[in-house]
């Protein structure tokens, strides 16, 4: 753990992410205004000392909206990735560990999800289920879990051949014991790396869906929705789009940077996976 902090990439991204998370959690304390507060006199104001990031078409403070937006985006990112991770790792480990027909079924299922471009799949699902935050998250989970299933399966196949798995079986341990005590702890690092890269991707995809009007309602403070709402004023009041865009970029980059750092820092196993072209 401490060794991870020797990696400059990890430290830098952790600082940025820490700041973002702090901002999201304490948005109600830190934000200069309430996000519902509309000031129709001061619509579309450029950045000033009163409104550091300017105001939008309803006179709401953009800095406030961006801060609350961090809440929505990070929540979506973490929630979607946690659920996808749980589903994907469970299925991937089962497929890899037991093999045979179970593997066949699970992998065909993942393949059929992977057969569509992910954005297309998410679009189709939200279009089908209807607009809204919950449906958007379901759509993103549908896309994201396959990543974890594949990584977990690949790593499990690797761990399964190890002597300690055989040795545990030969002292009478059950399959459940072996999976919980030996397999999961040994596949956790590639999974965590995929998770941190995944959060970035999910935040970007969520913003994309909201921008297209398929995610969060345009009036709620969410970065993608803010981009959508600001699009009409792009030429006259570019700050409406600039600040949420900047934060999306920063967040996604920080998560990817963190994931890459983890990957570099963590064990040899990743190198083997890389050789097999899984990343």
């Amino acid at each position: 753990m401490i060794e991870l902090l020797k990696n400059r990439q990890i430290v830098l991204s952790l600082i940025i992410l820490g700041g973002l998370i702090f901002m999201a959690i304490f948005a109600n304390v830190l934000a200069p205004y309430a996000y519902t507060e509309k000031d129709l006199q001061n619509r579309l104001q450029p950045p000033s000392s009163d409104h550091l990031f300017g105001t939008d078409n309803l006179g709401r403070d953009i800095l406030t909206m961006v801060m609350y937006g961090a809440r929505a985006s990070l929540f979506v990112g973490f929630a979607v990735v946690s659920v996808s991770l749980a589903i994907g790792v469970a299925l991937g480990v089962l497929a890899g560990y037991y093999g045979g027909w179970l593997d066949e079924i699970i992998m065909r299922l993942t393949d059929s999800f992977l057969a569509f471009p992910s954005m297309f799949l998410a679009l189709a699902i939200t279009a089908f289920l209807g607009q809204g935050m919950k449906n958007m998250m379901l759509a993103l989970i549908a896309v994201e879990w396959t990543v974890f299933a594949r990584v977990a399966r690949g790593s499990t196949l690797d761990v399964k051949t190890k002597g300690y798995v055989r040795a545990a079986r030969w002292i009478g341990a059950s399959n459940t014991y072996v999976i919980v005590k030996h397999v999961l702890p040994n596949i956790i690092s590639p999974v965590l790396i995929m998770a941190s890269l995944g959060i970035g991707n999910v935040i970007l995809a969520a913003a994309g869906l909201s921008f297209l009007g398929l995610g969060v309602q345009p009036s709620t403070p969410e970065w993608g929705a803010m981009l959508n709402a600001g699009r009409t004023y792009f030429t006259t009041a570019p700050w409406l789009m600039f600040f949420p865009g900047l934060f999306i970029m920063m967040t996604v980059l920080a998560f990817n940077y963190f994931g890459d750092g983890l990957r570099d820092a963590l064990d040899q196993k990743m190198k083997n996976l890389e050789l097999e072209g899984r990343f």
Partner: protein
Amino acid sequence: MLKAENLHCVYTSGLIKTVKKTAVCGVDLEIFPGETVAIVGESGCGKSTLAKMLVQQLAPTSGEVFFEGTKLTGMNWNNLGKFVGKIQLIPQNPDDVLDPRWTVERSVAEPFVVCGGLSREEISENVDALFAEVGLSAEHKPRYPHELSGGELQRVVIARALALKPELLVCDEATSMLDVSVQAFIVAVLKEIQTKRGLGLVFITHDLEAAKAVSDRVLVMYAGEIVEEGKDVFDRPLHPYTRALLDAVRYASLDVVLQEEDRALPDGFLGCPYFRLCRERTVACKEPQKLRDVSGRLVRCWKS
């Protein structure tokens, strides 16, 4: 105690063009309680394959293994559970027998934890006793496998294998990766444990000196077959291959170290597997050779 009958193992590799390789071919053997049997033979002759089949880690292509009269081969996992712990293998490569994310103490305690029925104090007492038995100190306990030397690791693996009080311990080249003094130490540790606990020991090795020193009986393998078996094999070798093996050690002669192609026999050749390299071969050697009893020694060569 452990009895194997007519064990065969054929490996199939390759997806499109499959290649078959007979690693073990018709091995019969029996191990008695408290006995040390050494299995020697050159690299690739099928020693590890045989060991894995004996402990049921590998299903034989054909043939059977019995433990105290019960047939183990073909038994499902639930029934096999009764024999768990009684037969333990110390594999050729000890590196991955221990979970890299577990301290070695936890790995040695694992058999007790899995089998249940002991309190935490009892487990830790048992673990301490095992560490002492293989000559490791408390200082090694909290370490991870990569923080131990090869010899220490090997001893941790032995300690773990001893945890469930096995009646038979199969050591696949337990010492070949170590330097001479550590080798001698581990051999001594094993021998001491054996006399103390009276367990059967199968000692697979390249090291003829070690084999001679520890064993009550020696099996010489060549190309997946047992070619000679008996008590004083090294003092009075009867099979030409055993003699060549001993010569290779005594004189480090190079002519036994031949290319794979040179020793390959024509397809469908059923005669003596050692035919190509044997200095004493005659036309009669093209006939299949059986293990013959030559005054208490089993030899697979008509000449002896």
